[in-house]
């Protein structure tokens, strides 16, 4: 997502230190980032997990042993390891594994799309307010502060209520509520970076405002945004579940992971913990994977780590 416009040549990671003549290769920036990312085992495993979950969701009809919506009341709440039902059944006798497989379709979409949609908007707002500052910048940040004052869920409900129910509208609502948070992160980073001398050096060399924003500041404010954005992905699943619970999200029979977890809460303390725990664990693993990928990308974007 970085826009390094000029054809840059970059030192190969092979040449560490600055004592010997360097092996200079003209690897592209993305290729170098990918190399750095591949060395990060946690990130590689996390990418594997998310790719796996995504493929499972995509091919759900082929993989799911049962219909995710169709329950067998006679077997309701049977535990893990029930013959034919590896992960047991929920309160309405539906196969939990099948629901998990289908649930990825909702949950992974809800995790990623709002964040992806909010990021560019937050980037624009945050960089504008942070770089130009002054009265306009201040005004923008004060408006965002007002949005901060609303509880996220309340704001999302209000937006979803205006837009009407449905998964797309819920994602839109969640995306909008995330903009101030992400913009704040970009704003802080932009203010910090703008004060550094390399920005002044660019200005002294006749750079236009647009050049300073795009070439100097953007690459430097991207990494906190990436880290923050990926950490929000996990939260989105839970937030969407909360909205479904309140009646403005995924409509209940649909097997969203968050919905499954909240469905299981009524029997959680009656000895049927698996109904809530299993989807909860899947959410945990997915959220963790998103976070670790975010950390990996941050490190891969960092020239200190690329070359050492």
């Amino acid at each position, binding site marked *: 997502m970085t826009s390094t416009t000029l054809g840059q040549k970059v030192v190969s990671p092979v040449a560490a230190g*600055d004592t010997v003549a360097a092996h200079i290769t003209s690897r592209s920036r993305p290729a170098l980032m990918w190399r750095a990312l591949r060395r990060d085992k946690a990130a590689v495993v996390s990418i594997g997990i998310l790719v796996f979950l995504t493929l499972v969701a995509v091919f759900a009809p082929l993989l799911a042993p049962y219909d995710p919506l169709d329950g067998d009341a006679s077997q309701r709440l049977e535990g893990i390891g029930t013959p034919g039902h590896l992960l047991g059944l929920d309160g309405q006798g539906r196969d939990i594994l099948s629901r998990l497989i289908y649930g990825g379709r909702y949950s992974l979409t809800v995790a990623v799309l709002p964040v992806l949609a909010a990021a560019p908007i937050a980037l624009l707002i945050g960089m504008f307010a942070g770089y130009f500052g002054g009265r306009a910048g201040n005004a923008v940040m004060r408006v965002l502060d007002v949005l901060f004052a609303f509880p996220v869920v309340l704001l999302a409900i209000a937006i979803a209520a205006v837009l009407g129910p449905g998964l797309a509208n819920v994602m839109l609502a969640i995306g909008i509520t995330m903009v101030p948070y992400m913009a704040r992160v970009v704003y802080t980073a932009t203010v910090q970076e703008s004060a550094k001398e390399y920005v002044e050096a660019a200005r002294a060399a006749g750079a236009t405002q647009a050049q300073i924003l795009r070439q100097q500041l953007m690459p430097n404010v991207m990494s906190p945004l990436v880290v923050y954005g990926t950490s929000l992905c996990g939260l989105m699943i839970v937030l969407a579940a909360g909205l479904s619970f309140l009646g403005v999200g995924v409509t209940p029979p649909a097997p969203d992971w968050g919905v499954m977890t909240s469905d299981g809460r009524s029997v959680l303390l009656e000895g049927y913990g698996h109904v809530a725990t299993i989807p909860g664990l899947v959410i945990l693993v997915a959220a963790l994977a998103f976070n670790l990928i975010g950390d990996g990308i941050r490190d891969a974007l960092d020239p200190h780590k690329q070359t050492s």
Partner: protein
Amino acid sequence: MSGRDVLVQAQDLRKVYAKPTLFGTGEEFVAVQGATFDVLRGETFGLIGESGSGKTTIGRMLLRLVEPTSGFVGFDGHDVTRLTPKGMRRLRQRMQIVFQDSGSAFNPRRAVGEQVAFPMRQFDLCPAGEVRDRVVDLLEHVGLRADQADRYPHEFSGGQRQRLGIARALASEPEFLLLDEPTSALDVSVQAQILNLLQQLQEERHLTMLLITHNLALVQHMCDRAAVLHHGELVESGPVDDVFHTPQHEVTRRLLDAVLEPVAA
């Protein structure tokens, strides 16, 4: 001094910082007041002052990296304070700055060669195909190696980064170089190298330099004339020998007394 014309002119420069609040402006702080001096073509002019005395702000105003609250800056007949943004960008080719090495003078995410090349591209000083060669020439000229162009700022030592800073400042082939505490972050031995490099470059390229520093020995070593700054006001200025041997102002005497360290220059 006679026969040399004025390149940079500061007249009654004043800078007031006001802390912006939600409504209007709050407390005001006068950083610079009534600064008037000329820098003659080809000379090195020293601006001496303790930290917080406003010397950096004056330097930034000369290059219009900071907008003066009032006053006038002239550069070779141009009114720097009233140029249009476009005219200013064009003039910047002739005036450059070397920063105190704080590690942040270069963008951490771009190869240094690309950053040295930026002014050349920006001012369209040579065909795109020659930029690379010119960068390499420049790096070698300031004592670095060609292959270091593809490295990132963090891979260099403080002294090397300062050489890079000088290379970048020279990339646009300026007449005027603003040196903002160019050696204060460096080891003494490296300081001497950088100073010698600057003097050598000044002779070769007929540069006019303004040296901002708190180090009197540096001024004595490098400068023809100097001004002493105290709390945002110029308290004394003149040829370096006069300022040093017959200080007129209390502040200058105090600064002189403070220099007790042996200087290897």
